């Protein structure tokens, strides 16, 4: 089973896991990280390192989802790329997390990351566009 870490500014990572759990049920091997203003970066790096090991007991790999490429949560996460079993997706959204829950057992971590990236992008939708002028 591929492990999950969501790392983001403030509390949205934990809330996103909570929302996913309310739809998909309990989410094992998943951790949320809140990076608060003024947080000690090296301390967070160490905690993340422990979490990466903790959510990956079978060695199937870990996906780290961050809120924004270039932000501190992403910048700290990037250091884990030395581990070939870690994939990082920036710009987490709820559909991506839900789809992760349903597919984490069915593909290797790299394939899963590619799939979730495409799925997450496809889930960003302007409603007016898909309705094709039907409204009003």
């Amino acid at each position: 089973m591929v492990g999950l870490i969501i790392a983001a500014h403030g509390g949205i990572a934990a809330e996103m896991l909570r929302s996913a759990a309310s739809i998909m049920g309990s989410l094992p091997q998943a951790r949320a990280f809140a990076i608060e203003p003024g947080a000690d970066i090296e301390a967070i790096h160490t905690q993340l390192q422990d979490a990466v090991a903790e959510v990956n007991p079978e060695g199937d790999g870990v996906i780290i989802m961050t809120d924004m490429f270039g932000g501190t949560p992403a910048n700290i996460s990037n250091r884990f790329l030395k581990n070939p079993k870690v994939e990082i997706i920036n710009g987490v959204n709820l559909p991506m997390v839900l789809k992760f829950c349903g597919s984490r057992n069915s593909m290797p971590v790299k394939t899963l990351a590619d799939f979730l990236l495409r799925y997450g992008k496809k889930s960003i939708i302007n409603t007016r566009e898909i309705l094709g002028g039907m409204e009003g």
Partner: protein
Amino acid sequence: MSVVLARVDNRLIHGQVLEAWVPYVRADYILVVNDVIAKDPFRKQLMLSCVPNSLQVKICSLEELPALSQRHLEHKHNLLVLFATPQDALSAYENGLEFPRLNLGNMHLEQGKHCISRTLAVDENDAHILDRFAQLGVEVTAQCVPSDRAQYWDCMCHDLGN
């Protein structure tokens, strides 16, 4: 046609249904039986647009249901049926859409209803209808998402002292 899930959910098609129940029961066809949505082209279009292409979906009114059951739903589908209320579920059942079990997902709190679980609120009329299903031999259970423990209506109303 095999009804793999009949569910009362006043949100009809939403995240819990699409992401959790559809894969869990391996549904390939969603049928929404709801007069309000069926008669409002805009809301109907909005609801249809939420469903991925891998699933077939139909939204019909109670009135349209019997014809639809005969024409479309006969042989091939693993059907997931959604109703907003127990009343709609009973009307559909009495009009020939039979199912062995009825799942209670979301019935939100309104004036005059009381909570029987985190996501379910019923009034006396709802309770009568659910009792009626039990008499008809339909197993009524409350289970919001598949990972929740199913609670049996018989036991729940016993707890309520009914």
